[in-house]
């Protein structure tokens, strides 16, 4: 690990200012990706801006319409949150399936979304629920947020404050876990908002995306078989040691079918 200057600001403004002043700064949230990357020398920031002491970034607030999850809220806290469990139980389920207990106790929703790992779980919910990413300077719609592999719409230094999830009538998430890492090889989040459906897919492509063909099929009826016939274009899917693009397409179909079946029971 190379040397760096360490900052522990107390406010969002101070954090953003520290980042702006740094030659090559990096925000540190839960550190579940950044710390191993630093240890391997793959990231060598000049400054590390620890968000752990920034006031107001952690916690869940729920209204009838929305659930707002602060950027520094740990996965374990989302999984256990009574507000989340009541309003969007599928989101709590998803958080409870991320990584392992150690990761869930350290990792944060803001860190996960800023990193935009193609196999992370949260992006499926952000897309599937049509969430809004609230940053220090603006609000970004889910559909505009994920742009490419490890790329998002965030500008340099832009800091996520919270994620605002609309409360659906019902929702479900099913994932196929990587046997070693427990990342999503394919994860499908299905949500219904008064007859209108959204389907978010993670793990399969370079970044999370909507499966609009399935959304349209579901509008005609909540039937797991809808997933069997929907077209899935795997030409840009990830293909690696553990799963080829073809196999990922199959997994998307199976996870979608299972998520729809779960949805039908809610």
């Amino acid at each position, binding site marked *: 690990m190379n040397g760096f200057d360490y900052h522990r600001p107390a406010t969002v403004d101070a954090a953003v200012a520290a980042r702006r002043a740094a030659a090559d700064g990096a925000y540190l949230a839960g550190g579940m990706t950044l710390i191993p990357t630093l240890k391997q020398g793959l990231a060598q920031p000049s400054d590390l801006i620890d968000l752990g002491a920034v006031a107001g970034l952690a916690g869940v607030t729920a209204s009838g319409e929305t659930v707002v999850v602060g950027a520094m809220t740990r996965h374990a806290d989302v999984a256990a949150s009574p507000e989340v469990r009541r309003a969007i139980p599928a989101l709590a389920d998803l958080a409870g399936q991320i990584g392992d207990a150690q990761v869930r106790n350290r990792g944060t929703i803001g860190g996960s979304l800023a990193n935009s790992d193609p196999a992370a779980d949260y992006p499926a919910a952000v897309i599937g629920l049509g969430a809004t990413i609230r940053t220090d300077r603006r609000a970004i719609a889910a559909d505009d947020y994920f742009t490419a592999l490890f790329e998002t719409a965030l500008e340099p230094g832009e800091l996520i404050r919270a994620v605002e999830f609309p409360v659906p009538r019902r929702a479900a998430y099913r994932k196929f876990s990587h*046997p070693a890492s427990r990342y999503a090889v394919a994860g499908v989040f299905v949500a219904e908002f008064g007859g209108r459906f959204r389907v978010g897919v993670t793990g399969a492509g370079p970044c999370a995306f909507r499966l609009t063909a399935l959304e349209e099929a579901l509008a005609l009826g909540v039937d797991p078989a809808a997933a069997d016939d929907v077209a899935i274009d795997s030409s840009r899917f990830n293909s690696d040691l553990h799963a080829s693009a073809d196999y990922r397409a199959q997994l998307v179909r199976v996870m979608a079918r299972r998520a729809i079946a779960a949805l039908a029971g809610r």
Partner: protein
Amino acid sequence: MSETGIGKRVKRREDVRFITGRGNYTDDISVAGQTYAAFVRSPYPRARIVSVDAGAAKAAPGVVGVFTGQDLAADGIGPLPCGWMVKSKDGSDMKIPARPPLAVERVNFVGEPYAVAIAETPEAAKAAAAAVETEFEELPAAASLAGAAGGPQIHPDIPGNRCYDWELGDAAAVEAAFARASHVTRLEFANNRLIPNAIEPRAALAVYSAATEEFTLHTTSQNPHLARLILTAFVNLAPEHKLRVISPDVGGGFGSKIFVYPEETAVAWAARRVGRPVKWTADRSEAFLSDAHGRDHLTTAELALSESGTFLGMRVRTKANLGAYLSTFASSVPTFLYGTLLAGQYRTPAIHVEVEGLFTNTAPVDAYRGAGRPEATYVVERLVETAARELGVDPAELRRRNFIQPDQFPYETPVALVYDTGNYQASLEKALQRADYAGFAARRRESEARGKRRGIGFSCYIEACGLAPSQLAIQLGAGVGLYESGEVRVNPTGSVTVFTGSHSHGQGHETTLAQIVSDKLGVPFEQVEVVHGDTGRVEFGLGTYGSRSVAVGGSAVIRATEKIVAKGKRISAHMLEASPDDVDFDEGVFAVRGTNKKMTFGEVAFAAYVPASFPDDLEPGLSEKSFYDPKNFTFPAGAHIAEVEVDPDTGVVDLVRFVAVDDFGEVINPMIVEGQVHGGIAQGVGQALLEHGIYDDAGQLVTGSFMDYCMPRADDLPSFEVDTTVTPCTHNPLGVKGCGEAGAIGAPAAVMNAVTDALGVKDLAMPASPERVWRALQAV
């Protein structure tokens, strides 16, 4: 005898310190003035080292020194030897590439160390290692086993990258058997490369005293005396009596810590060079790259059968990956620990095996839990199961028809072993009962009703353990004997200290050996201490591997206790004014037969050290030692049955049941034995379903972390059902055979037989990953 004697489920005394964080592992040991080492490793699978510039590294803060392979060579250190000579068919010796501890002219696998930085802190050492500037000339690599023979030649003096071309058995008899066969079953498969991943990575702390010219090397070794022998007699580090090797608590080895490695060697040398203690602890990434890997075979195997399903002959051709260099025992694993086991539990009359040992630009491959025997079992048991399916015979029934029968022992196989005892059908029948084989068809129907597929698979394995009769091993090429030493030292107060040349790195020797000695001497279990893992305290030893500790090490301890009893009889006879021949010893009491005269063991011990009136021919003291050389291998065997349910949508294999019925001979501590079986099965299931060490075509290790290399976890496994049958070993005093490797040997074939049964396919590559299984189902 007591609740702690032989056969009792005594809780492991060492676990208290392990589970309360008070173990004493190498990295826990620190000494004044110690420095830290970090290695500079090759990023290329094969390259010429053009130049190494350590100028910037040496100038970095806190750096004590930076050294290259040339520095060690200049001091006459190295090369690292291979301890087993294997000869090719034509009688020629195997080809041995020079393996300097730190590479000098060329690097031959990714992660091979070629320089070391020594600094005041681990961080400074790592920074210095990263600051070493090296110019390489990249060379084409032979990365894969399949392409090794025709690939770029790795070592200048070894054409075709071939170490040896070995054979065993009667080729002509096998030809004749196949000529008259009514059915031949043929399989081609790989035995997947595994990476050991002991929970404690390798570590070393070397201290050198300029005053006495003595080294003390604390290190993670499964056999510290062998490390001392190799580092002194072969590597030229120091005279043997000037090196003490201490292997304190060691967190697992599975074979990977048998060997003498470059890093520990360089650390020891560096301690003298810099005049300060040097410490090194591998991180997990280094462990993946540089620990000796396991398995990695490509095999074609054929079984010839008669019309009635009698095995007539077996023909096996294997390419074995040895990696870039010969690790300490690498040459023996795919030959004498593999080809000799191909008879399995059966009366196959003719067997011929050919093995090509090939070098590749990958980490060295050597013994890993089971070492050759899992590979042999996989060949035999996949063939037998496949033959049964092809002939439409129940796989259990085909095995029954071909088992060596209990009245046929001792049984000489066509591949150089003499099995002393066994009852294979007894284990199989018990396993069939435990697994409710009769109810399988109904369970399969129930699975199918839920859209799942269900399969059942058998593995009736045998292993040769209790390594090894020295005379035979040396005839076959071993460079060392394979006996074991044991010393029983009775203290004046009657407590006992046992010194064993076996080494515990998780197996529970401190409990098992104490049970044996307590039982045999009638001394309370709590008063028996077991010492191992220190060349300064234990006279000699050959360590722990090959399920040898109780069969060989325990036998040495038994012999020493017998000498203690004999001496005790002489002492008590003198004290009680009787003849030693008239003294009986039972449950800790020496008694003169036919009288009420007796002495307790404690009284005899005290008398031995306070010899008030000993005659001239009776020496004081009560301490005896023994070297035990086994007369034969031991042959643990058993029947494993796996049952799986497969999700055809995703290809996920759910191992729903695993039954293991093993014959380990007599059992000292059933709880420890069950623990060994559980761990072994977990590793075997890992090989079958999850683990795979993969180098890409360019020679880079692409499964170099737990993100990509999948270790088995508790939730991948069912609750195992384990049981035993007993045919005592005929040639050692305890009747024991060894249990440490059985699970890893038996499980892979059982699981793969179950998976292929569920899928209705002839073969499937390990690991049976979800995508492989799904693809196999698409092709059916």
